[in-house]
């Protein structure tokens, strides 16, 4: 069986209108993939940087998969949330990226977006916060129903991920 290790960090986020951010992340794979070690989802701590405009989480990621096929190559989906001074959580952005398929260390920047409501909802959002959210996370990394959405760009998430492949040459798969 071919094996894939994904090891790295969700470093942080930049370009968002406010600080006090955290990130919920999850990894989605196809049916041929089996998780051998690690967890496929998690949530970072809330970071409120004092000096900078980048929030740092340094959230470690370590996953080990065995796979029988290339379909369903892992996709990481992210949700950036803002926690305000009252402790309420407000969605700031969704994003997804494919895990790189070449072995080695990759520095990745993932742009986020959030759903845009009606103009009434936008005015409400400006005063009170909140805003529309997706009911199902599958729309973040799936393309089939995207045409129904109207979105606005938000900040970006910084990641560093290292991909280690094992036995791919044995099956004739060229990845680098």
């Amino acid at each position, binding site marked *: 069986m071919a094996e894939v290790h994904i090891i790295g960090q969700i470093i942080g986020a930049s370009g968002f209108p406010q600080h006090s951010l955290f990130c919920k992340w999850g990894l989605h794979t196809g049916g041929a993939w089996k998780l051998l070690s690690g967890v496929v989802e998690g*949530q970072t701590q809330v970071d409120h*940087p004092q000096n900078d405009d980048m929030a740092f989480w340094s959230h470690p990621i370590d996953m080990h998969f065995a796979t029988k096929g290339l379909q369903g190559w892992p996709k990481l989906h992210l949700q950036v949330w803002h*926690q305000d001074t009252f402790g309420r959580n407000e969605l700031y952005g969704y994003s997804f990226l494919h895990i790189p398929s070449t072995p080695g260390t990759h*520095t990745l920047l993932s742009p986020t977006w959030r759903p845009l409501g009606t103009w009434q909802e936008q005015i409400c959002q400006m005063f009170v916060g909140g805003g529309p959210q997706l009911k199902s996370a599958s729309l973040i990394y799936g393309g089939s129903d995207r045409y129904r959405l109207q979105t606005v760009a938000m900040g970006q998430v910084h990641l560093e991920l290292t991909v280690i492949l094992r036995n791919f040459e044995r099956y004739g798969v060229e990845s680098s």
Partner: protein
Amino acid sequence: MASGPSVFLLNVSGQIESAEFPEFDDLYCKYSFVYGHDWAPTSGIEEGISQITSKSQGGKQTLVWNFPVEITFKSTNPYGWPQIVISVYGPDVFGNDVVRGYGAVHLPFTPGSWFMGRRPEFTDPKVVAQGEGREVTRVRSQGCVTVSFNVVTKDLKKLGYNTGSSDFPSAQLMPQP
């Protein structure tokens, strides 16, 4: 017929070079390693405490430790790849040592020279004392620690692992705002 290797080795030598903490002075750092069950250190020092360093007068406000780190690990599995955990401590207004930040980074994966900056996060001690999980921790990140490593691996390729190009050593600078 000789049988193939069953373990691979990761040898890391380097230093915790320096730090930038705009609001604190007279700091020292501790390092230790966190790794999975399949990993074991074979030689080197697993934990260390540096000297206390102060910012130079005028000029660059950098805190220099130049603190050596040398360790070799053996493993059967990349899962649980070692992370170096760096904790920075300094005096509070009463002279007691308090933690100024924690940071962790995975040791580099490919042979070569690596130069990295890491941001320790400052954790509010009251929240940590409540014993809740990382999801409900609020931190304030301030300051940055720079470390540099030289990495050599043995038998990683023989065991079938492909960690990407190692034909030329690369120096990688971490993103800094």
